[in-house]
């Protein structure tokens, strides 16, 4: 078969989000606008400006489903735990089992920003205390960047590519597209892709110092994350993981797998930190080019897009993002597609954000709805000057959702955009 013509679909999903650690719980949350943002006493104790956060709520006993008692000894890497919950659940959701023997047709591309930062901190304290010999056997595997893909690959017996990508807040979207390319080229049949992020003060401190997190909602956590709102005042730090089994359509059909959506195409690029772009700000030329190329790659037209799941973090850059979408799609006012931001409910899951939001996008296709934007009753005038406020739903809308565009943007001036279609 001509590899150019291979079609690629998604056959399983898993989630570990601040507002749900199973697919049914997460689906219920996003349909009903349930926030996962809570007051964070640890951030308060450490004197953070922002004292609210979004963390997956995982009961102690639940961990045993993903890590044996032995693996839990000296385990201190919440990002790996989130990734295991999302990743292993996605594999199971796809109707697949851990392999007894190595499976050379299946791989893992699972990204992260850092790995095991709490374990890293613990290790550094021991080393400085002349206790290097007491680090134990798992300090390396928990703190190496590829820890999450190594854990997943080992638990499932995967023998194709097993790697971790990293591109800040674009990581999860990039992982999906890297998997898509590899399957499309015929080098793998299926890849467990996704991304994760550690939670806690040692991840979020740098953002607090950058003054990009909100400090105005410490006493009203659920109202804190306000993408596209006039009263948005910065993002809410969060963490979590989303995962998806990306599969060759032929293989999916052979197995009789359920299909969430087809990946029509996508694009990743960078603004080169030139023009208006910098280490922390996006170059609009590159953002628009990324969206346009994703559409071109998908063989659709911009007017075919039913809805957009944006990056939209609740900082002053939201208006610029809407302007980039409007320019790239050539659609404005009431012609603009519906748009939403999951961050209104879960905050900014950083390197986990793209994957958590992709899972939300896929659920909208599977269940034919658009989830509400919460905390967005007062849309920023800069945004309503470009698109009609009715395109930013504050209540769930049930409607045919055929084609969804999802984009993520990250520090380093990097962009990723993917186009999904109902199969």
């Amino acid at each position: 078969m001509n590899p150019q013509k291979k079609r690629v679909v998604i056959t399983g999903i898993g989630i570990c989000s601040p507002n749900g650690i199973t697919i049914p719980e997460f689906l219920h949350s996003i349909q009903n606008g349930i926030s996962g943002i809570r007051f964070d006493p640890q951030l308060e104790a450490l004197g953070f400006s922002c004292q609210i956060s979004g963390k997956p709520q995982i009961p102690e006993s639940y961990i045993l489903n993903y890590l044996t008692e032995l693996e839990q000894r000296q385990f201190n890497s919440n990002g790996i735990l989130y990734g295991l919950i999302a990743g292993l659940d996605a594999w199971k959701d796809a109707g697949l089992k851990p392999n007894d023997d190595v499976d050379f047709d299946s791989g893992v591309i699972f990204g992260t920003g850092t790995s095991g930062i709490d374990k890293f901190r613990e290790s550094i304290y021991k080393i400085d205390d002349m206790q290097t010999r007491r680090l134990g056997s798992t300090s390396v595997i928990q703190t190496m960047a590829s820890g999450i893909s190594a854990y997943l690959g080992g638990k499932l017996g995967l023998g194709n590519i097993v790697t971790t990508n990293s591109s800040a807040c674009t990581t999860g979207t990039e992982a999906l597209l890297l998997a898509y390319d590899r399957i499309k080229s015929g080098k793998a049949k299926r890849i467990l892709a996704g991304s994760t992020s550690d939670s806690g003060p040692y991840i979020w401190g740098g953002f607090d110092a950058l003054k990009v997190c909100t400090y105005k909602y410490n006493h009203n956590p659920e109202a804190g994350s306000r993408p596209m709102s006039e009263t948005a005042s910065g993002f809410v730090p969060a963490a979590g993981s989303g995962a998806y089994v990306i599969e060759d359509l032929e293989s999916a059909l052979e197995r009789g797998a359920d299909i969430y959506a087809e990946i029509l195409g996508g694009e990743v690029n960078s603004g080169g930190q030139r023009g208006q772009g910098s280490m922390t700000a996006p170059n609009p030329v590159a953002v628009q080019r990324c969206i346009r190329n994703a559409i071109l790659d998908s063989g659709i037209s911009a007017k075919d897009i039913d809805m957009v799941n944006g990056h939209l973090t609740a900082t002053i850059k939201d208006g610029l993002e809407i302007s980039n979408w409007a320019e790239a799609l050539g659609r404005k006012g009431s012609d603009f597609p519906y748009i939403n931001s999951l961050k209104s409910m879960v905050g900014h899951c950083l390197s986990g954000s793209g994957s958590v939001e992709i899972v939300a996008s896929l659920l909208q296709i599977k269940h034919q709805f658009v989830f509400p934007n919460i905390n967005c009753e007062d849309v920023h005038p800069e945004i309503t000057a470009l698109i009609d406020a009715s395109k930013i739903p504050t209540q769930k809308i049930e409607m045919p959702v055929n084609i969804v565009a999802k984009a993520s943007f990250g520090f380093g001036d990097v962009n990723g955009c993917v186009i999904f279609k109902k199969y």
Partner: protein
Amino acid sequence: MTQTEIIDTLKSIVKPYVQNQQAFETLDEKTDFVKDLQINSANLVDIALDTEDAFGIEIDNESMQRMLTVEAALSIIEEKRAQK
């Protein structure tokens, strides 16, 4: 601490890492941690650290390197306890 108590303590330390339960049930002085109990070799350092904690001793690098069997472990524990 009697020899039996030492062996019992050592068994409880080793138990979580064992991948061959049958060999563990018939454990004796000749039992090899990796070959017989199929313990992941990376976990030998954890066993050494747990042994240090349980007996209040410190196991030097050379001793750790030869601590591959029950017999070797017992002799190292005995030696280090005597040095205390």
